[in-house]
């Protein structure tokens, strides 16, 4: 039983439903925050995955920082709720994060292509790269 699954599902759904640039940026910001918090929670659960979760959390901060200075990001403070059960399997959590990061990467890449403002385009490109790194870090098959 992994209790953070609803959170990641909600964020994935929100990413898919976004239409405007401010919405994409806002959803992306929250997605990176969710990934960061979940990764931090899982860091010391399995020694073999310590480096993976730490690096994923760091990449999530990279992505969030890239979106923070996007001109079209709305000022409103929205925060992703997240919770992770103590018994959550780190491997399954890694799978969830890999899926979320892949969705995030794809959405940000397509948003970059449609961005009007250069600042938004650069932010989406950088954030998509960060999401791609998270995806690579969390994927348990061949990267």
């Amino acid at each position, binding site marked *: 039983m992994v209790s953070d699954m609803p959170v990641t599902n909600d964020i994935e759904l929100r990413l898919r439903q976004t239409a405007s640039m401010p919405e994409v940026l806002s959803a992306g*910001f929250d997605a990176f*925050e969710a990934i*960061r918090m979940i990764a*931090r929670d899982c*860091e*010391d659960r399995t*020694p*073999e*995955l*310590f*480096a*993976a979760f*730490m*690096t994923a*959390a*760091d990449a999530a*901060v*990279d992505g*969030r*920082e*890239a979106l*923070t*200075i996007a001109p079209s*990001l709305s*000022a*409103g*403070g*929205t*925060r992703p709720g997240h919770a992770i059960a103590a018994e959550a399997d780190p*491997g399954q959590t*890694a799978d969830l994060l*890999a899926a979320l990061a892949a969705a995030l990467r794809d959405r940000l890449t397509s948003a970059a292509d449609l961005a009007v403002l250069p600042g938004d385009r*650069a932010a989406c490109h*950088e954030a998509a790269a960060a999401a791609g790194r998270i995806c*690579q*870090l*969390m*994927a*348990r*098959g*061949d*990267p």
Partner: protein
Amino acid sequence: MRPVFGEFLGPAGEHIAAAASFRGELPYAAQCQAVRQLDIIVATLARYMGDLSLPDPFGPARESRSGARTRAAPARLALDRAARSLRPGVGGTDTDQGHPVVGHLSAAADYLAAGRDLLHTHFTDSGTGLQTPTSWWAPVITSGPVTAALLSELANYTHDLASWIAQLAIRPRASPGAPTAALLALRDAEPWLRQAAAAMQTAQRQRFPPADRKLLGAIPTSIPPPRPALGADEPVAVLCERIPLTAERLRHAALAFSADARWSAAATSLSWRRDALASAITSHASDLVLRTLAERAGQLGMEPLFGARLRTAAWHMVEAWQSWRAVAGQWDIVTTGAVRGAGLTPVAAEIGDLALRAGRLAYRNAHWTPACSHASLSRDPADLAYAPGDIIIVLATVHHATDAIGRILASDRDAVTVAAAENRLYVPVRLLSDKYDIPHPYTPAPRPHTEALLTAYHTAAKAASRATAFLDDLAADADAPSSLLAIARQASTATRRSPGRQDNQRAHAQPPIVTPVPGWIEHTLHNLQIRDPALLLRAAVIDEAAHELVAEAVAKTQSRDVVANQTSRSAQVAAAQQDLRCTPRAAQPMKDQVSPAIPRFGSATVKRTSKRTDHSCSTTRR
């Protein structure tokens, strides 16, 4: 491999010993060339003396600037007099450069000069007459034990040269008939070299263990080793070779960048975050490695205490990676702001190599990366260290990595503290509660965030310090290759605790010839037909100290009322300096007025004239 000081000092000593052991006759042509080479050696030795930081107990605060007020002054002056004695014998075009003695002396001169150049790579001129350290070896070089070890070596060389000259001078067959100018020059220089050797031994004062002589020889040139390329499949032996190289590069980069940290565009939270991340991963891997080593030590039947100490070291490493993790967590929120194109600091750009290699040392997967797909179990103990000697080598590797991380931490902590003090830390507004209505992406970090970040660094520094200190002891007891790190730390710590030390700066190199002409006291002794080098040396030291004292007093006077009495003061200043620098020949009655800056020495009183039109000097004896 980078050249180390021992590669120059050792051969220099061997060549001097080889030259000094020569017992044949020295042909005339070779005599001239030997004097020339000896002159070069003596000048180089004098420069070494000028470099040394040997504070006089009465003037520690001024030690860095002072020439006379250091314990090296007598040795330097004796070498100066030896060089002066040799000068008349240098010359002649019909010289024998192929004689073995000449060859050995020439080689020794080259090695000594190159060794001194190597030591100088660790300092840079600050423009204030002081040399600023540019490497973490600099405080080691200026430390008491290493200075004592260097003095001991140089004293031995000087003594060997004096002994060689002594046996040359008593061999009349070396030059049939009247002694040559070269032999006379050598004979005149010999007592000064003996005085110099004795003065070096006296200046040494401090006893030093053999480890410090080893440390002296191990001082490398201050050029980082080349960056080892990341191989796809690096076995344990290669990892143990390359991790210390990466660690050394990072140590060098951390210190080199610290001077730029305040203004560099790369001094950002991105770089500090990368450092914290890689340090946490490296420490985590080191924890695994140490536990595996402890297990292997048990399997090999090594002393149980050693295994227990390895486990304790692993426990210290747990503290270290947990504290680094806390630092990384603080950087999740606090930031210097996103700046595109700012780049990374040299440390942040390369510290990933250390984390990657540490991980590959800890885990079975030779292609290990932080990715989940490369996750693997920790190495089999026998694979990590097959024999007891391998355990020591892997331990040394972990020691190097931990030491480098500790230095990076100190550098980052200082830079972050400055950033906090200058209000350069922010938080994203979107992460604050909704009560904040700020129309900007960032806002200055609230004090609790800043304090939490600095506290995390402080805790990490303490954990890193404990881990490093424990590994220092362990490496030293096991005689690991990294034990030099421990010895160097002890030496530099002692230097920092010495009274009067200022950031390990040292005096700018003194010119080899410090007093162009004999001073007042020395001249007086000459007039009294004193030929004892010991007395003449004491006189020279007093003269130089007096000269510096007057120069200092003059500088104070000038700064006090430079405007009011500029004209008359300048005249007094020039006269005071001239009187002490020159022999007393120039003194002429000046309306019976004795300069307050000029002391009376015994029956000889110096007066100066206001009608002085040139720089000539004369003596008036009463």
